[in-house]
C-alpha cells in the first residue's frame, strides 16, 4: 500500500493520550474539519515515527491531532479537527 511505510493507527497512541487524559480515549470519535468524516480515534491513521505524533483523518489524511512532548510538558494541537468526544465513564 502506498505511503504506508510508517503508518499505524490510533491504537498506537492510546498510551500517550491516556497520559494526558488520564483515561482511555481511543473509542471516542473525532470529527475531521476538512472532510467532515467522523471516526473513532483508534481507527484513524497515526504516524508515530517522527519528532511527535500525528493523527490524520483516514479518509482525507488531513491533520487531526499533533502531540509533542518537550521536557516537562505535553503539547496537544488540533489543527483540522472539529471536535473530539470522550466516552462517559463505564
Amino acid at each position, binding site marked *: *500500500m502506498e505511503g*504506508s*511505510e*510508517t*503508518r*499505524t*493507527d*490510533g*491504537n*498506537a497512541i*492510546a*498510551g500517550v493520550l*491516556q*497520559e494526558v487524559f*488520564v*483515561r*482511555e*480515549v*481511543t*473509542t471516542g470519535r473525532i470529527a475531521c474539519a476538512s472532510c467532515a468524516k467522523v471516526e*473513532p*480515534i*483508534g*481507527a484513524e491513521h497515526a504516524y*508515530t*515515527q517522527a519528532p511527535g505524533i500525528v493523527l490524520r483523518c483516514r479518509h482525507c489524511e488531513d491533520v487531526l491531532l499533533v502531540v509533542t512532548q518537550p521536557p516537562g510538558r505535553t503539547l496537544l494541537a488540533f489543527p483540522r479537527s472539529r471536535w473530539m468526544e470522550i466516552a462517559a*465513564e*463505564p
Partner: protein
Amino acid sequence: MARAAVLGRLSWRLGEVAELIDETPRVRSIVLDVPDWPGHRAGQHVDVRLTAEDGYQAQRSYSIASVPEDPRVSITVELLPDGEVSAYLVGELRLGDQFELRGPIGGYFVWEAQMGGPLLLVAGGSGIVPLMSMLRHREASGASVGARLVYSSRSWEDIIYRDELERLSARANGVQVFHTLTRSQPEGWTGYARRVDGAMLSETAWPASSAPMAFVCGPTPFVESVASALVLLGYPATSVKTERFGPTGG
C-alpha cells in the same frame, strides 16, 4: 476490573519474568508476574521500557497474549531484523529478570464475551497475538459465539501458537482456523498458499448477513488490504476493527 482498565493514570510497573516459551524459531512468549496488575481486556497492549546503564531508553508496545482471567501477564515478541528491543527480549532476557511495563492500554481494538459475535479474526504474522488473547478469553469465558480465524504465516514453522490453535479448533464449538502459508508449505499441504485476498475471505469469512464483528491485525499493508476486502464483501466499515503494527522498529 474492566473499570480499572479504562480509567487511571498509567504508571510504570516492574514485571518479573516467570516463564519463557519459545513459540517458533523467532518468536518467544514472556510470562510476567506484575504486582498489583489491574487486569485487562483481550486486545489491549502494554508499553515496555528498557533502560541501559548509561540511561539510554527504548520503548515499544506489545499486545497482551494472556487472558483477562489469568493473573499473569504474557506478551509474545517476534525477533525483528535490526530490532534492538526484540533482540533483547527474545535473545537475552532470562527468568527472574525484571523490566518496566505500563498498561493495560487501548479500548478500541478490544473484545469481551458480552460484546457478542460471531467473530471473524484475521491475522498477519505476529498480528495473531491480540487475537489469541480474544480466542483464549472466548474459551475461558465459555462464550458460545461462533469464531473463525484466517491466519497468514510464512511457513508451517512460523505459525505462532500452532498446537494450541489445533486444540482450540478441535473442541465442540471450537474456533474454525484457516491457515494460509505464503512462502513455503509442507509436503502434502492442501490449505491456502497465498496472501489473504477477497476470494479467500469470501470462502472463509462469515457472511456479512450474520453481522459478524471483525478484528484484523498485522503489518499495515496487510491490515489495509484485508479491511478493504471485507468491506467489499459487505461488512459495514464500523464492524471491521483494525490494529496496524506498522514498522515497529523492533
